[in-house]
Every structure is written in C-alpha cells, then in structure tokens.
C-alpha cells in the first residue's frame, strides 16, 4: 500500500513496484491519482494525449512518476516509497493563473461541510487567508 498526495486529494493505492524514483501503478490507480486516462496513444485528458516515456509502461502497469515528470511536474516521495507527492509544476500553475480565472477550490468549514469557491460566481468575493501562528 502506498499513499499518493495530489491536487485533487489523497489516494491509497497498491504500488506494484517502486524504486529508482519509479511508481508503478495499475491502470485503474494511475487514472485515479492522475486524472488522466490511459489509451493506446498514451495518457489523455480532454483533447490532449501525452505519449508515455519509453519504459514507463509494462503491460497494464504505468510508471506514474515518470509520466508526471514528463509533464514538468514535481514528484517527491519519502525514503521508503510509501508516500508520494504528484505536485503541480510552475508552467501548469502559471497557465492556470494566466487567464485570471480564480482557481477553484473546495474546503471544509468547522463542521466539515465542504464549500466550493466557484459556487460564489455572481458575487464579488474577498478571499483572505489567516492563521493563528
């Protein structure tokens, strides 16, 4: 069992293998954690398909770390390979902000009820961070 932390959430997966920076997952888990779909052309999302790097696919297993790095996104793991972060790269982050569309986010209140920012469309929103520290 391994944990994969992504922008869309935390996932428990069965890692087929790890080592040398590789994270081999079966296709179902690979699609779950990346949000991309495995097709003959490679990994696809919306209208875009990215061929998997050579050696990043073996039967029905995908080296998700290699794929994620191929997208210029940071990939981290702890020493044991138990927990992985599939981060968002600078180019992707910049692209997301470039059109000035406020990135959407869903976060819970104290009661645990999720609130999605984009549901406030139609109002002027003052989004402010704070902390007790």
């Amino acid at each position: 069992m391994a944990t994969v932390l992504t922008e869309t959430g935390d996932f428990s997966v069965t890692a087929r293998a790890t080592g040398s920076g590789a994270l081999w997952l079966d296709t179902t888990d690979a699609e779950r954690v990346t949000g991309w779909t495995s097709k003959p052309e490679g990994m696809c999302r919306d209208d875009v398909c990215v061929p998997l790097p050579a050696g990043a696919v073996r039967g029905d297993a995908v080296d998700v770390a290699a794929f994620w790095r191929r997208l210029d996104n940071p990939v981290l793991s702890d020493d044991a390979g138990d927990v992985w972060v599939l981060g968002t790269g600078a180019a992707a982050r910049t692209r997301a902000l470039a059109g000035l569309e406020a990135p959407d986010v869903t976060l819970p209140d104290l009661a645990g009820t999720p609130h999605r920012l984009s549901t406030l469309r139609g109002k002027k929103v003052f989004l402010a961070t704070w902390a007790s520290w």
Partner: protein
Amino acid sequence: MWQVLYDELKDRGFMVVAVAEESRGAEHARPWIEQANATYWSLIDPDHRVAELYGMVNVPQSVWIDEAGRIVRGPETAGSTDHFRQMDLATRTLAPELQAARAAARARYLDAVKAWVTTGRHALAADAAAAKLPRITPAIAEAHAHFRLGVWLKRQGRAAEAERQFAEASRLHPDSWNMWRQAADLEAVGNASGPAFWARVKALGDRAYYPPPDLEGFPR
C-alpha cells in the same frame, strides 16, 4: 476579522471567504473562528492549498474576485503593516503612535475594499492584474510539494522526516513566510513568533514583511 466589512456589504452581492492556513487542522483554528462568530465562510486549509493555487506567501493576504470569477486584485497584503517590526520585544508593546498608524492603514484598506464593492474602484484591468500576479518558479512549485509532504508526514507522527521536508520547502521558497512559520508552529506552538522568527524578520533588512498594497494612500 472581516465581519464589520461583511455586514456593511453583504446585501451588495459581496462575500468574504476567510481561509485558515492551519496545518494542525480545524480543532486548532476553532477558538478563533468561534470567537469571530462570522456569518461569511470560514474554511480550513491544512495543506495550504489556497496559498499554492494563488501564489501567496504570508497571512493575511487577499485576492479580490469579481462576479465573473476573475481575479481583479492580488494576492496582496490584506490590511496588515510592518509597524510590528518596531515592537519593543521586552515589553511586547508598540508605541501608541505606531498603533494608531497601523490602525489607520487597516481602516484605509477596508475602505478600499468597500469602494470596490460599492463602485468597482480599485479593480484592475486584465493586463494590470496579470502583471501583478506572483511569478511561480520551478523552485516554488517544488517547495509546495515538499511542504505538502511535510504536513502529511507530521500528521503521521514522522516529525523528523517532516522537518526535513519543511526545511527543503523553505530553502526552495525562502520568501514564503507561510511555509516557514507553519513549520515552526508545527514543531511547537509559539515558535512561529519566537526568537528565530524575529531574527528572520531582521534579516529582511529594508525589504517588507508585509508589502503594502498598490493602492492610493499606501506609500511604497
């Protein structure tokens, strides 16, 4: 913190979304949220996702979003100032004239938000707003990944590994006070405002801890 503003403007199609960048989670933020008794959204963000999505580096910072869901200002310092740097550390007090100046700056900021909501003033046109967006570098993107891992490891009780991740995050993104202070606070509550914090602030020299917003009445 924003209730007065919200009460004045809520019938004008205005909403406040207050986000606690609090890696210790909801229970840690609870006392402040309950005391504020706000009727706007008070959300908990243990992974600092909002800071990552919007390129924020400190609290409080704000982003102003218009009715179409577009960023029209920010991220920017939200009403706070650098007067605290002149605090007498022995007595933990700020001279009355500095307290007054700080309060006046905050009032000016709230007035600016109100002017935006009531008249549209201070909303930036697309090219101006885009020009003011923070530049996200590969180092910063990687820092966020290290920070995320650090928070998870800390939650699992793997404190030493977490500290290594936080140290790497701050090394990659030294401008992020969020990352540094949250990591310090996770080590021990209060560390974020202790001697190491004051040393780090002093090391800023002439650079601002809270850069003032680019608004009339806020000298830069």
